[in-house]
């Protein structure tokens, strides 16, 4: 059997740390090959090796059976390898067309000649039913569309091996379904795909074979059809995983967070993004705000936590009006916020892990004396959290946050927020981009908060999460709450109807 690409016995070390330890990945022509592993298992390192960003200490790469040397991404590109990165690499004020030809512009006497490129792109777009407007600005199109631009970019370069790095992390359920269709069509036409993910459902749905990594080691390659989800997750995590978090029944106590008639008007359109929203979150209760992305959930949370100004309404914590309090004040009163965008809000990426871990508490007496930071105390505290929350990084407390894997960045944020012993945890998409082991962990932490009599407000776009974790579900549609239901009284189909705005029960 000939492989399109083989990476044999790859070992990549960073100092004493083996990011890849004797890993073998062999992809057949015309297959979707899943690459499965927890955060920090070495998937990204392996792909960086393939792209010539890192040179491995040991091992070889073969393409169509011939050994090749890949020194830089351009070399990889010439060999027909293309990648859709998790965080897209697009220029926001370029049009779709410009973004795709960027770096491979066709030129006539020194002037750009876009006609041919346009023809090719339109043809590709039609063939795969991308429905993309080549003249739209990147900043104006949805995330799903941006991803298609990235895919088009690979197809435009006639790449044969396409790598998708966690492509579904940013998509809505509908978009995921369409992406899957596209992937299947691509392999039918003879392309090969490496599909990096940790969502087992998706692997089950489209992948032919799957290679599993764990802590930098090669665990095995399996036929997806012959292996159960449980089996795969056990290979990945190294132990049995609970997909449905365990939860004891609990009767909610007094309200902790009360939101009354909260309204947020958009400065640009003058429309209400959040329209007269009222709800309560009680002690020992996880309330989940469900809905399709962009129906006002982010704004609602930003309004509650104080990141954006609200137009009207009242927010109370334990009966005390905190509407006009500063963010710092709210934080001291007992708000914890796990933000949606961890790079934009959650972390100062150029600060070290320990500095990020005290980002919300550096001013407390234990970390400063007369305005001077107590680095010893900060280090000890960070070490403690790193151990308690199992945050992994190359240099421990002094690692720069930017260099940490996404899952460990998220763990750092969660550690920081939960360790402050808050009254209410506001978490937006806390498991986005995390693997099953980490998801299980985050959910168990949120449930522990609830069991300790704290309140949790969770915003999620994933229905599984909504159904499994929450005690009560609020569905948002166009800035309003259209349903207030309990998970045991409702089916996923019914939730879908509320989310689409075709049904109401508030």
């Amino acid at each position, binding site marked *: 059997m000939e492989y399109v690409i083989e990476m044999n016995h790859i070992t990549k070390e960073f100092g004493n740390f083996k990011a890849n330890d004797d890993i073998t990945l062999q992809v057949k022509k015309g297959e979707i090959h899943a690459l499965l592993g927890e955060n920090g298992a070495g998937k990204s390192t392996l792909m960086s090796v393939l792209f010539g960003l890192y*040179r491995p*200490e040991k091992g070889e790469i073969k393409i169509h059976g011939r050994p090749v040397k890949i020194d830089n991404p351009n070399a990889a590109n010439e060999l027909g390898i293309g990648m859709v990165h998790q965080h897209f690499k697009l220029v926001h004020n370029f049009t779709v067309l410009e973004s795709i030809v960027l770096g491979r512009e066709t030129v006539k006497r020194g002037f750009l000649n876009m006609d041919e490129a346009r023809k090719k792109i339109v043809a590709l777009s039609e063939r795969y039913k991308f429905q993309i407007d080549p003249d739209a600005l990147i900043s104006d199109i949805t995330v799903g569309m941006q991803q298609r631009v990235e895919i088009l970019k690979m197809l435009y370069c006639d790449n044969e091996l396409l790598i998708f790095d966690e492509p579904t992390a940013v998509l809505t359920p509908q978009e995921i379904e369409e992406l899957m269709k596209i992937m299947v069509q691509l392999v039918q036409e003879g392309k090969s795909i490496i599909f990096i993910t940790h969502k087992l459902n998706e692997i089950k749905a489209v992948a032919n074979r799957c290679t599993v990594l764990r802590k930098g080691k090669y665990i095995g390659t399996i036929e997806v059809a012959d292996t159960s989800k449980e089996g795969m997750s056990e290979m990945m995590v190294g132990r049995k995983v609970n997909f449905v978090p365990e939860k004891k029944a609990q009767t909610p106590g007094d309200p902790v967070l009360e939101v009354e008639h909260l309204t947020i008007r958009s400065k640009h359109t003058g429309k209400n993004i959040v329209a007269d929203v009222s709800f309560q979150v009680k002690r020992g209760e996880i309330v989940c705000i469900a809905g399709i992305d962009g129906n006002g959930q982010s704004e609602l949370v930003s309004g509650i*936590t104080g*990141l954006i100004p609200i137009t009207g309404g009242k927010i109370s914590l334990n009966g005390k009006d905190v509407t006009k309090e*500063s*963010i*710092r*004040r*709210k*934080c001291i009163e007992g708000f914890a*916020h796990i*933000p949606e965008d961890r790079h*934009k*809000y*959650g*972390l*100062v*990426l*150029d*600060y070290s892990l320990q*500095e990020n871990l005290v*980002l*919300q508490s*550096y*001013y407390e007496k234990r970390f*400063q004396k007369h*305005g*001077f*930071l107590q680095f010893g105390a900060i280090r000890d505290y960070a070490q403690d959290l790193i151990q308690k929350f199992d945050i992994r990084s190359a240099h421990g407390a002094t690692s720069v946050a930017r260099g940490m894997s996404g899952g460990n960045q998220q763990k750092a944020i969660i550690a920081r927020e939960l360790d402050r012993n808050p009254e209410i945890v506001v978490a937006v998409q806390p498991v986005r981009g995390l693997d099953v082991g980490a998801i299980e962990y985050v959910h168990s932490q949120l449930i522990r908060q609830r069991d300790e009599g704290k309140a949790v407000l969770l915003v999620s776009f994933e229905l599984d999460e909504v159904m499994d974790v929450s005690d009560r579900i609020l569905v948002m549609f166009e800035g309003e709450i259209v349903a207030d239901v309990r998970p045991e009284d409702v089916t996923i189909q019914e939730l879908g109807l509320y989310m689409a705005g075709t049904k109401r029960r508030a």
Partner: protein
Amino acid sequence: MKKQGLLNFSASALAVICGLVFGLVILLCTNPAQALPGLGIILKGGFADGMSGFGYMLYIATPIIMTGLSVGFAFRTGLFNIGASGQFTMGAFVAVYIGINWTWLPPQIHWIVALLGAAVGGAVWGLVPGILKAFRNVNEVISCIMMNYIGMYLVNHMIQSLIYDPLRSQTQPVSAGANIPKAGLDQLFSSNNLNIGILIAVVFVVLIYILIEKTTFGFELKACGMNRNASKYAGISVKKSLAMSMVIAGALAGIGGALMYLAGSGKYMQVLDVLSPEGFNGISVALLGLSNPIGILFAGIFIGYITVGGNNLQLLNFGPEIIDIIIAAIIYCGAFSLLFKHLIGKLIKRTKKEEESV
């Protein structure tokens, strides 16, 4: 951590060497016969005239260390303070004004009050762009440039209407008590210009280092510089931080102005339509010092050193313009130290890899 420091130092050193090579090329072009002796003179720099040259070097370095600190500090907090020139001028004017008029102050504290006044003058000039940035998100580069011109013309006007000596077309001399004490440094270095100004600059270097690296306030400022959104999320008052950064940067530049014109060196503020170059040299100093206070101290002294050496070039009949060009070339290359840092880092990585693979 130590490695990082070495890397920074070697990057700056390499930048300086490149500048010197460039300077040699200019010397070769203008006067080939004298080029090598010329380079020798530049290299000898502040040491050419023994202690007095050394003292002169420190005197030149003092104000640009302060403006360098101003720019470097703002840079660490995410702001590009191109307005050091205007802040410098404002500070200088306030200091000179106090030096001339507030003669009722006892001489022991007269100069201190003048320094404080300069700090306030510079701070106000930094505050305006800071507030515009914080509350209206006006790009600080643009508002700083405008403040430079406003400062220059305003000071010209105020000099003429308040403290002008029309005979010499410069300000009146400041009263003796307003001059910064020499504390014997002038005798030690047999240089009339030198006073404790350089020590004051060193004190500020240390203070700013502590402020940035060790205090909660510095933690907040840096956080704002690196990620404004996350800082807001963490409850830091971003607006206050932005404004405070500019105020501190302005005060530093303002004190620089005072240290320059209260030196008792015979240098007077004149009514010229020229932005003070010390402010812009501060940008080079900050770049060469990689925005690190300690680095800025050495970068400032280095530029003083080169300037003294350059002035000595006149002995070999090089025109003053050529000297300015060479100094500028060296400073210009100094600005590339970041680039060199990147290159050296890459080089180290590569050799390490090869060592490992052997």
